[in-house]
């Protein structure tokens, strides 16, 4: 087995957790089959070596360049291509974040090979990868075999373990220069507006508090935001606000919160569905959540079929009581 290259995303001076998941997955494949793990940093590359070593990198490759501080598809794909050569890698792994989904196929195109995206399971056997990926937003699971060389695979965030850091590990690092021309910078980043601190996207959340038709309007979402506020104060993880398609299409909340087949697919440790009946396309987007709570007045609502814990009651009674209870338990205001 040859070497594996992993693209590492960083944000606000830290390695994104999803990249650690990809790194640890690469480590496991490399351990089982021989070969080295190369972690690739592009743009700002200082200060990540130790973390990357602890999570499995043998070598850190760095394409350090101020012009690459913000992601741009073309020069990044070119950098990955150069890093593949440098690492003599036959496998390229990365997380299927919005960046990863944009980048990976452009790299695959450079090699003229098919790739697999957004997978939830992976096994390496006899020089081939067998991968599992949800289709139709998880209504069906497909098993596929990828024998292309190189094998380019993006991993669905929050599915693969990032593992425990091994602090005894160390890494060497190498600077890699990539020949970039003006032509590679035809697209330009004019502005980056990062989400405000505390505002978590549903795909990044540990806990999602989600509302549907039963929330009845923007005011209902305000109530859910109060619950999120208490959960944040309780310090139980990153909490995000989710919504069903009905709530979004009714204009009660921005579409970036939408969970489902036509929204975002999520896999938090806890998904709390308030006033969501559980249309098939919504269930498709959240059924891989580890624990699901449903609160709905209608005992026949399909959401109860996937819920681990259900309360058949009015959310406008339950949520304020839940806020009160959490404040007591966690001793927060």
């Amino acid at each position, binding site marked *: 087995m040859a070497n594996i290259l992993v693209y590492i995303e960083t944000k606000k001076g830290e390695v994104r957790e999803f990249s650690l998941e990809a790194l640890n997955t690469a480590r496991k494949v490399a351990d089982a089959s021989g070969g080295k793990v190369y972690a690739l940093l592009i743009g700002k590359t200082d200060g990540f070596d130790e973390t990357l070593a602890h999570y499995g990198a043998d070598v850190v490759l760095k394409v350090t360049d101020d012009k690459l501080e913000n992601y741009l598809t073309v020069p990044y794909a070119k950098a990955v291509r150069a890093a593949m050569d440098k690492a003599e890698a036959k496998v390229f792994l990365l997380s299927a974040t919005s960046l990863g989904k944009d980048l990976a*196929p452009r790299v695959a195109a450079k090699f003229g090979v098919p790739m697999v995206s957004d997978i939830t399971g992976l096994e390496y056997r006899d020089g081939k990868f067998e991968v599992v990926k949800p289709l139709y*937003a998880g209504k069906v699971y497909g098993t596929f075999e990828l024998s292309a060389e190189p094998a380019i695979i993006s991993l669905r965030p929050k599915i693969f373990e990032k593992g425990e850091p091994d602090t005894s590990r160390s890494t060497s690092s190498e600077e890699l220069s990539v020949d970039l021309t003006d032509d590679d910078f035809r*697209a330009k980043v004019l502005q*980056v507006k990062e989400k405000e601190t505390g505002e978590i996207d549903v795909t990044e959340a540990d806990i999602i508090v989600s509302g549907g038709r039963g929330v009845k309007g923007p005011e209902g979402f305000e109530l859910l935001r109060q619950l999120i506020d208490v959960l944040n104060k309780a310090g139980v993880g990153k909490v995000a606000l989710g919504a069903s398609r009905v709530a979004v299409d009714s204009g009660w909340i921005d579409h970036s919160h939408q969970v489902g087949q036509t929204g975002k697919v999520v896999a938090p440790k*806890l998904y709390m569905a308030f006033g969501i009946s559980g249309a098939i*396309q919504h269930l498709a987007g959240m059924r891989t959540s580890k624990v699901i709570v449903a609160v709905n007045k209608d005992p026949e609502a399909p959401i109860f079929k996937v819920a681990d814990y*259900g309360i058949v009651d009015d959310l406008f009674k339950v949520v304020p009581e839940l806020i009160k209870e959490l404040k007591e338990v966690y001793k927060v205001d």
Partner: protein
Amino acid sequence: MKILVLLKKVPDTGLTLQVKPDGSDIVRDNITYVINPYDEFAIEEALRIKEKLGDVETVAISVGDEGAKEQIRTALAMGIDRGILVKVDGFWDLDGYTTAMMLKDIIEKEGFDLILTGKMAVDDYNSQVPSYIAEFFNIPQASYIVKLELEGNTAKVERELETGMEEWELPLPAILTCEKGLNEPRYPSLRGIMQAKKKPIDVVEPSVSPAGTFKKVKLAPPPEKAPGKIIDKEFPESVKELVRLLREEAKVL
């Protein structure tokens, strides 16, 4: 100006899908198909550009089976000028690379200033084809756009990411992938539906076939979930019990 819109026929997202007993495919009898919802944003955006600039030709292209003419016809009824079907039976098993290769020849032949398509297809969740095509034609790309302004030969876009928003500027020709929020796709008007009947849909055979390095092994239903419990205590005890269970049993709080 010429705009190509890439679209895909997908099962209606409201459907429950069954897997065939031999795991070879989903049961496709009685399935209703729709235009991939994200591709509808691309169609709508192309139409808005045409309405604004006037001298714009819009072409819808799809890799699909004979039945995919229906989805192309819907795009024509919305207002797209003409359609091209790259006819492939069982197109849902194609990998993104092969699909993009099948589109390559026809795109080359047509020429374009702008290619618009959805950010992903809701059947395979791949988001691959646009990036492959961008590389094949050596053009810049911007994905997940929720805002587009054309100024002469320059596209200014807003991209929506899980980490925030980005504003990009790129020269045409380019390929852009559309995210929900870009626009509100129109429904075909009765007049549009009548006109669409007269608009041409060219059918072409693909010039490539899959390389065989990506293979479907089997399909299966999603993993079963153990049945959950309905908390049968009276309010407000039910809420206390829920918090207790989440902390002590599920250990997620």
